[in-house]
């Protein structure tokens, strides 16, 4: 992964337009080490390296959030420990371990 990809200018869905002078924050997504910036929401961090945060339970498509204000509940993402976070309203914390698929042993 190149420096640009790690910071979301290539691999992910979103484009960072400003506020690039922030400290880096490390997190783990689907077993891979990734980097985002301090102040990123979990949604921003994940979409800077991926195009979605989860699979839909009711359709074939993936999901990447919709309203970004905590109302639509589209952006819930799994953590490795089996708990879930609403990605748009949760700030990224160093060392978070996130997965875009449900952890093994969990029913969908």
């Amino acid at each position, binding site marked *: 992964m190149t420096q640009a990809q790690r910071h*979301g200018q290539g691999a992910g*869905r*979103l*484009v*960072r*337009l*400003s*506020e*690039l*002078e*922030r*400290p880096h924050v490390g997190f783990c997504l689907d077993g891979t080490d990734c980097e985002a910036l*301090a*102040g*990123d*929401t979990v949604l*921003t961090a994940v*979409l*800077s390296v991926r*195009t*979605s945060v989860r699979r*839909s*339970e*009711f*359709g074939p*498509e*993936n*999901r*990447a*959030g*919709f*309203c*970004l*204000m*905590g*109302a*639509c*509940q*589209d952006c*819930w993402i799994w953590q490795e420990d089996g*708990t*879930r976070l609403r990605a748009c*309203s949760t*700030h990224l914390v160093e060392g978070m371990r996130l997965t875009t698929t449900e952890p093994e042993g969990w029913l969908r």
Partner: protein
Amino acid sequence: MVAVRPNAVRVVIVGAGPAGIRAAQTLVAAGVKPVVIDEGARAGGQIYRRPPPAFKRRAEALYGSEASKAVDLHAVFDGMVASGTIDYLPATSVLSHAENVLHALTPAGRREIGYDRLIIATGATDRVAPVPGWQAPGVYSLGAAQIALKAQGVALGRSIVLAGSGPLLTFVAYQLLEAGAGVVAVLDTSGLRNQLAGLFGMLSRPRLVLRGLAMRARLGKLYHAGVTITGIDTDSTGPVAIRWCDAGGKARETACDMVALGWHLRAETQLAALAGCRFDYDADWLQWLPRADRMGRAGGNLYLAGDGLRILGADGAEIAGRLAACACLSDMDLPAPDSAGDLRRLARCERFARAMARAFPWPAQMVRQLPDETVVCRCEGVTAAGLREGAALGGTEVNRVKSLARVGMGRCQGRFCQLAAAEIIAADAAIDPAEAGRLRDQAPVRPLPIGAWIRDA
């Protein structure tokens, strides 16, 4: 009469947007110390949402012409927090309500908050119409595109199409262009003739009209009026193109990797409903809105303010917040500032907002004609066909259709599908959407992780 000591009465405000902040300020000025509960990590609401502390853009870059209003609201709120004149519960969601107690989820767990008087200022979300393909990742609400830019400094795609109608459409497009985002088309379902017809009413606030026209001019050839959106073509990663018909009926296609949809706003009314509010169908905003007097009194010890009551925008919300607090104070026999000026200003905001709602209407015809396979409920993938079957089987009452077709039963609890669902049901039965009734609200109004709920804060 026994004088009421201001702090003998517990006033709780839900929401710290422009309405909640002004309500709190008005109460504090009268010596009352309210509890302010807000879902946001920092006060400001959606339109005056603040980025996290590490961000450096100036208010002018974030809020444009409204920067001074944003700065003032934030300063007023921060001042009240610093001086201890309010009890502030940030990052806290009110989930339910019973017998003068709010059940809230705080970052530390569950908390019950009792009150003597309650001011609900929960704002609004985007009013969204389903479009074939809108369930794909990379389709967002217009508000989401704005929040991403304002609070995170990001664009949600490289080739962005904004589609819908209303002031936010032009505003978000303008903000994205100014920030250097790749906007490839702005598709307005309202035709120019319709917009002109609403202009007369909007002249009650001429400066806003001029500002809107200037932003529209900046969009140039990206902007198209009077379009019909046919669908979003997608691959596994998201949108690849949007299909639409121009005002002349010619089929067009625009390549893109992100689509943002929005037709004005839809009031957030769940808590008001759980608190016992009555509702009326509003013929301009084409949605159910809570019943309250001009001051925001909704009966008993309940007051409403801001876009969750009447969709007047941020300026109207500030006024409504002050009015609700004044009503609350005078109902407690405490001295309240004179409200005559605010009532006049509120009326002017309402004339403007109603004209705006008519100039940039909900796309009823487009929704009524949605193909059967279109997903109407994004949460659970309920299609227009499923909805139509439910209505054919059980009748047109929306709550019955919900129990049969599950539309409105998903995690968003109908916030983003209920207006379209009522429209589709009404079209098939040849009735007015109001006659299909109003979806009942259920607690908890947000999904509740059970592990968090069993922890007492």
